[in-house]
C-alpha cells in the first residue's frame, strides 16, 4: 500500500497563512513596538537596575548601618564606620541614579527610535533634492 500526500490541498491555505503572517507582521510592528516591546525593554531596564541594586548591597548596608566595619567596636571605629557607610551609601545611591538615568534613556531611545527614523526618512524623501539625485544616479 502506498499513501500519497495531497500537497495541493495544503499549499493554498499555507501560502495564504504565510502571506497574512508576513503582511500582518508589518501591521503588528508598531503596535508591538509600543506595547510588548516597550514593556519588555522597561522590564529589562528594571531588572538590570535591580541587579545593580543587589550588587551594591543597599539592603545589606542599610541593615548594617550601625554595625561597625571591620569589627572595630570602639567608639572611634563606630563613628568612622557610620560616616563611611553614609558616604558610601550616598555614593552608591548617586551611581544607581545615574545608572537608572542611563537605562531610562535607553528605554526612551527605544520608544523614539522607529518614529524618529521614519520621520527623518520621509522628510528626506519629500525634499526635491532626493528625487533629482536619484534621477541623476539612474542616468
Amino acid at each position, binding site marked *: 500500500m502506498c*499513501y500519497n500526500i495531497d500537497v495541493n490541498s495544503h499549499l493554498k491555505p499555507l501560502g495564504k497563512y504565510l502571506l497574512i503572517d508576513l503582511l500582518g507582521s508589518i501591521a503588528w510592528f508598531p503596535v508591538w513596538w509600543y506595547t510588548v*516591546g516597550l514593556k519588555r525593554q522597561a522590564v529589562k531596564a528594571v531588572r538590570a537596575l535591580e541587579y545593580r541594586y543587589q550588587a551594591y548591597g543597599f539592603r545589606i*548596608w542599610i541593615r548594617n548601618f550601625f554595625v561597625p566595619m571591620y569589627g572595630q567596636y570602639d567608639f572611634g571605629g563606630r563613628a568612622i564606620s557610620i560616616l563611611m557607610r553614609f558616604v558610601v551609601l550616598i555614593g552608591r545611591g548617586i551611581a544607581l541614579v545615574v545608572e537608572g538615568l542611563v537605562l531610562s534613556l535607553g528605554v526612551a531611545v527605544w520608544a523614539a527610535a522607529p518614529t524618529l527614523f*521614519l520621520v*527623518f526618512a520621509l522628510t528626506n524623501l519629500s525634499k526635491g*533634492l532626493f528625487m533629482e539625485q536619484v534621477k541623476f544616479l539612474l542616468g
Partner: protein
Amino acid sequence: MQENQTIEAIVCKGCGGEPRLSAQCKLCGGAGIGVAGTDGFLVWEERVDEFMIALRKARRQINAFFHLGLLAVVLVFLVLFAWQANRLEDLGELQTLAFWVSGYWYVTLFWFACFFGTFLVFRLSEYSVESKALPNWGKTHRQLEHEEKIAEKKAGFRFDVAPYFSVTARDVVESAYNLAKKLQRTEVTPQTLFAAALASPSGGVFMVRLGMQFDKVKEPITNVLLADDAGNPPVHLSRDAKKVLALAYADARANQRRHVEVMEIFLQAFKNSPKIQDVLDQLGFPPEHVVHVGEWIRLRSKLKEDHDRFQALAALKPKSTMNRAMTAQQTSLLDRFSEDLTLMARNGYIAPAVGRQKELAEMLRGIESGRRSLVLVGEPGSGKTALVEELARMMVEENVPPELFDRRLVSVNIAQVVAAGDPGMAAERFLSLMHEVGVSGNIVLVMNNIESLTGAGLGGPMDLAEMLASELDKGYLLAICTTTPQAWTRYIERRSLANKLIKINIPETDYEDTIKVLMARSGLIEYDNKVFFSYAALDKAAALSERFVHEKASPERALDIIREAAVLARKSRGKKTFVTADDVAKVVHEKTNIPVESMTTSEASKLMNLEQKLHERVIGQEEAVQAVSRALKRSRAELREGKRPIANFLFLGPTGVGKTELTKALAAEYFGSEEAMVRLDMSEYQDKASVYRVIGAPGDDRGGLLTEAVRNKPYTIVLLDELEKAHPDILTLFLQVMDDGRLTDGVGRTVDFTNVMLIATSNAGTPFIQAEVTKNTPLEQIKRGLLENELKGIFRPEFLNRFDGVIVFRPLTMDDVTQIAWLMINGITRRLAEKGMNFRAEDSAVEELAKEGFDPLYGARPLRRVIQEKVDTALADLMLQGKVGRKDTLILEPGGNIRVEKAPEL
C-alpha cells in the same frame, strides 16, 4: 515504573477526550484531556497535523530568508551611506541638522536602514524564539514556595504546555505524527512518541549509553506500533499521547528544567506504554535501566543549565574573605588553618550534589530553628562532605535562610589545630580561632570529624570538646560538624557537646541514589580520562559495591570503583573507549578477590568438573563432594539467596576420613590456594572469654581473629575444626552468621559473611557412626539417627537447623585406604622427581602398606604414619648414605624394601 500513571488524568466531559470529537469541542478547546499541575490544568492544545507541521517548517524557512534579506538591505544602505559620507569634502557637514534632512539620497538610505533595523529587531524577537522558558526556571526556594501557595488559584484554568516544548521536543512530536502517518495508523500513541524520541539525536545518545543497537530494536518496536489501530488520515494525537505530553511538562517543571526537552517526552512515553516496556524488557533492557539512562541524559543537560545560572549568581558573591556588609574582620589565624568553601564554590571548584533533598532540608530547618549548630552523623563515604559543599553552593547563590545570608562557610582543619602536641597550646590556638570567628561575624564553621577534638585519635588529655560546647553556648557561632556513628556513640554522645548540636543522620545512599550520584559525577571522570561510561558500568558499580565492598559507605565506594574502572579502560584500550560492566567487575574482583565478572567458559568448565577434581584428592565421600560442588555452582550462577553465606556445611564423621582434606582441596581448586581459608581450631575456644578472640574485645580497634580475617578477605572458606569443642556462646555467634551472613565485631563494624563458605567439622557421634556402618545401615538413616539422638546433647537443634547440609563422612574401607596409599605414594614420587630421582611402587607393596595402615577407628592417619616410617625413613637413609643419586630409580617392593636402580653411566 508506574509512578506517573498514578497522576490521574482528567478527561473533558464534553468530548470524552476522543481525539476526533475534541477537535471541535468548545468546552475543552480541543485539549480533550489534561493533568492537574502547579501552573493550572495542564493540557496540550496545539493541533498537530500536516498543515501545522508544514506551516512551522515553511515559517522557519521563510523567516530565515526574510530576515537575512532584510539584514542585507540594512547593511547595503549603511555601506552606501558610509562610502558617500567619506567622500564629503567637509566632514563638519555631518554635524549640521541640515545635512540630515536636506534630502541627500544616501542620508535618506541611512534613515531607512535605521528604520528597517528596528523592524528587524522586532522580527527577530517576535518570530525567531520558538519556545518559552518554564515558569519556575531559575527561581529560588522562596519564590517557588510562594508559587506552591498560589497554585490552588490557578487550578481552575487551562494551561497550554505546547509553547514550553523546545524546538527539538516539538520536532519529536511532529516526527511521531509523520511516523503514525507512514505506518497508516489513526492515532499518535505514547508508543509512537517513544519511537520518535528514540530516533531523535537525544535518543541516539540514549541508545549508546544503554548499549542498545537501533537495528535490533527497530523491528520489535515497529511491530508494537503496527498493533495500534490502522486507518486513513487524519491522524490525531491520542488521549494517552496528550496525557504523555502534559506529564512531560509536569516532569520538566518538577526537575526545574528550562524547556520541556526530548528526554521528558521519552521518559513519560516509556512509563505510559506497558507494551514498549515489555518489548524492551524481552530484548534485555529492563524498565529501570531505560528510565535510569533517560534520567542520566536529562541530568547531564540539567547540570549544564544549573551551572550557567550558578555562574551568574556567583558573580555577586565577594571574591575575598570580606562580606558584603563589610562588617567582617581579617581572620589571619583562621585562614591559616582552614579553607573557604564558599570561595571555592564561587570559583567553580565544587561540584553540585545530587539528591539528598531530605537531609538538606533538615539541615536548613536545623539552622533556622535557632538552636543552630548541627552535626552530620554518617559513615565515611556516605556524602557528608558533599552535603556541606552543596550548602556552600547554596550560600553562593544566597538561596539560604537569613542566618546564612552574606556569610562564608569555612572548613577548619581540626587535626592541624590540635597538632601542637601540647594541650595548653592547642586550647589557646582553638580559642584564638573562635575569637576570630566571633569578631568577624560572617563565618559559619565546618568541623569535620569532631571526635578529634575530644582527643579520640590521640588518646591523650587533648580534650577541646567542652571548650567548643561552651563556645557554642555563647551563641555567637554557627558550626556544622561531621562525625561517624561509632565516634558519635563513643566520644560525643554522652558529653555536653552533644546537647549543643542538632544531630542529622546521613544514611548510606541506597542503590537508586547511588546510581544518581554516579550519573552526576561520572561526567568529570569521563572528562579526566577521556572515556565514556555505559549505563551497565554504573549499574554494576552501584550493585557490586553495595554487595562486596564494605570499607566505605555508598556512594563513595561506588565512585571509587568507577574512577578505577575508567583508568583501567583507558590504559587497556586507550582513550575514547567505553567503560563496560566487565571493567567494573574486574576492578571489584581485584579489590575483593571475589570473582564477580560474568563467568568465562574456562571457569564454567572448571566448575562443571569440580567434583572430579575434588575426587582426585578426597577418596570416597561422594555425598560430601557432591554437596560442596553443587553449593559453589549455585553461588557462581547467582542463584543463591544473597543474604546468607555461600553455604553452611557441617561435616560429621570419624577422624582421618577426609573432612579437613576436602576443605583444603576445595580451597585449592576453587578459591586459589590451600591457604585461602580462615581456619579456627575450636578446641582453642573453649571458654567464654574466647568470644572476644573471635570478634574482638569491645572498643578494641584491632578487631577479632575471625572478623578481621573475613573483612580483609571476604571471599574465602571459614573452617571451624572440631566444632563440638567450642564454648556454646561461640556457637551462638555463628547462628547469626549462618542466618544473616554478617557478624558485628567488638568495635561495632558489621563484617560481611555472604561470600564465605562456612564449613564446620566435628567428630561428635563417631562411635555411633562406626557402629552403624558396621551394621551396613544406609548413610541417610545414620544421619537421621545422629541428628535426632546423638548430637542433641552437643548442639542445639536451632543451630543444626541452620546448616544447609549436615554431611556424614563414612569410615574408610580397605579399598579407600589402598587408594589413599596410592595418592600418598604419588606424592612421594612428585617430591623425589623434584630431586631428579624416579620412584615407583609395586602394587603388592602398596597393598601391604594399606593393610598395615588400615584402622577403622582412625581413618587414614595411621596410614600416613606407616608410610612415613616405612618409606620416607628408608628413603632418607638411602640418601644420607649416598646410595642414591640423580637419575637413579627407586622401587618400593613388598616388605618395605627399596631397591635402587642406578642410572646408566654417562
